[in-house]
């Protein structure tokens, strides 16, 4: 008992003292190392002529680079649109409750997520080696149309297909998590009112799923912007390929890679800012629905609860 009393009186007097913060003496060592390395790097940026900043400046706003940038942006948008639309379809297929249809979607996602997008792009590039002609008709019967594959699957088409179909597999999972995050009571209330499946999805479920779907979609768009650079293997003149074409002429490889990288950085930075606002907007939840869906959905719901500060 005496020990307790002693301890009590000690902690009582300690309560009056200011808190002594833990010291981190090693952080100063870290600061010095970072400072030295940083200074070395900056000096080399300025002094090393191999960076070729004059070349960077020369080509930064050149038409070929800007044209490549425009193609990169277009490709990003088109591939994302294809990915989102097909992703929604695949997500609905997976949730349809028909085993064969759900299985097909599962297989698609399994395949396109399980192989590198680079390899997929190469496949689309070399598709004519697999199917020299494409035809529409009855299997083993008459053919209505027939195309040379190479005239149909041009580098643009190969790029769009390669990126878009791959993206669809990822979008499918995002959309599925979004749909599952919507409380099942919403569907029941809609059904009880006499609404049909398509309408329920369009008017009730998807709008609410957007809160969960949009932030990762913005994230994927940023990824896609960078992934489009892989399309240079298809000789499609997007940003990286435009830079490559230039340095294959003038052999100033590094400056042109820097030029391209700076543009990628600029656009991804803009998109990151946009993503921040989009996320803020969509995490402002009005729904009380409980998340029963994927990890993503649960995470977002938890985040939202934390934001609300348990106000309910």
């Amino acid at each position, binding site marked *: 008992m005496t020990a307790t009393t002693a301890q009590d009186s000690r902690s009582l007097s300690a309560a009056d003292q200011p808190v002594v913060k833990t010291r981190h003496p090693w952080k100063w060592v870290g600061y010095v190392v970072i400072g030295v390395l940083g200074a070395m790097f900056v000096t080399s940026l300025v002094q090393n002529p191999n960076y070729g900043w004059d070349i960077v400046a020369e080509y930064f706003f050149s038409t070929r680079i800007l044209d490549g940038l425009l193609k990169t942006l277009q490709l990003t948008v088109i591939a994302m649109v294809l990915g989102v639309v097909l992703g929604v379809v695949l997500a609905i297929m997976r949730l349809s409750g028909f085993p064969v249809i759900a299985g097909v979607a599962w297989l698609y996602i399994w395949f396109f997520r399980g192989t590198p997008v680079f390899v997929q792009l190469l496949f689309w590039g070399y598709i004519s080696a697999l199917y020299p002609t494409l035809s529409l008709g009855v299997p083993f019967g008459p053919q209505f149309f027939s195309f040379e594959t190479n005239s149909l699957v041009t580098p643009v088409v190969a790029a769009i297909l390669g990126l878009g179909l791959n993206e669809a597999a990822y979008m499918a999972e995002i959309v599925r998590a979004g749909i599952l995050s919507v*409380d099942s*009571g*919403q569907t*029941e*209330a*809609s*059904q*009880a*009112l*006499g*609404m*049909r*499946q398509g*309408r329920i999805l369009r*008017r*009730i479920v998807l*709008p*609410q799923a957007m809160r969960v779907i949009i932030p990762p979609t913005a994230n994927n768009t940023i990824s896609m912007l960078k992934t489009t650079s892989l399309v240079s293997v298809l000789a499609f003149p997007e940003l990286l390929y435009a830079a490559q074409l230039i340095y294959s002429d003038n052999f100033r490889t590094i400056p042109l890679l820097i030029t391209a990288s700076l543009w990628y950085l600029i656009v991804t930075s803009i998109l990151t800012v946009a993503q921040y606002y989009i996320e803020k907007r969509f995490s402002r939840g*009005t*729904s*009380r*629905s409980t998340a029963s869906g994927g990890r993503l959905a649960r995470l977002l719901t938890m985040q939202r609860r934390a934001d609300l500060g348990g106000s309910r």
Partner: protein
Amino acid sequence: MTTVNEAKVPMVVAENVHKSFGHIEVLKGIDLTVSKGEVMTLLGPSGSGKSTFLRLINHLETMTSGRLAVDGKYVGYKEINGRLHELREREVAERRSEIGMVFQRFNLFPHMNVVENVIEAPVGVKREKRTVARDRAMTLLERVGLQDKTHAYPAQLSGGQQQRVAIARALAMEPKLMLFDEPTSALDPELVGEVLDVMKDLASTGITMIVVTHEMGFAKEVADSVVFIDGGVVVEAGPPEQVLVNPQHPRTQGFISKVL
């Protein structure tokens, strides 16, 4: 509420209704009839299958066996030449649109404001003109006392207000039957009264209602009949003054004494 001399026309007829979830039989042969204009209260301990039975009536669940008809038509089936055929989704939806349902947890559409919630089905399902639907929505919202909340979103409303919107939303489809699944159980005690008042008012209009509730006051005052379900069967049924005041079956007695 029915007047005495009115001939009793059945609205809901259940015959030997069975429902199993996997190996668990929840309903073990329910027989009951709800007449047009009747207000029936369904009582029973938790897990006795009250919600399941309500959900069978508008085909949110499918029956395992038995017969269940609403207004002379089988729920989820149609009879062609003496044989039952499963209905298509469109037909199921059509029949559901004639049955209103109010849920314990309101289930309002959180991304739509009050008016949009109410007109969503009339416009989308019945293809009503927006102006017509909106006018009726206003009348209904006035009836449930929410005429000044028309542009609020569900999250901005109290539980009692949300439930009253949910009732207006169901009524907007002009249903011939209303199902209530514990409409006041999720409400704070001081908000229960406002919802019960709306339901009492509704009962007086002569619409057929099946109400699952633990509100004995409501049952006594408003219900024409009370049905007590336990263990998947109807244990006791009759007018409230009999089942609630003077129950015959020991299980009913036990339940009533606990709830009161």
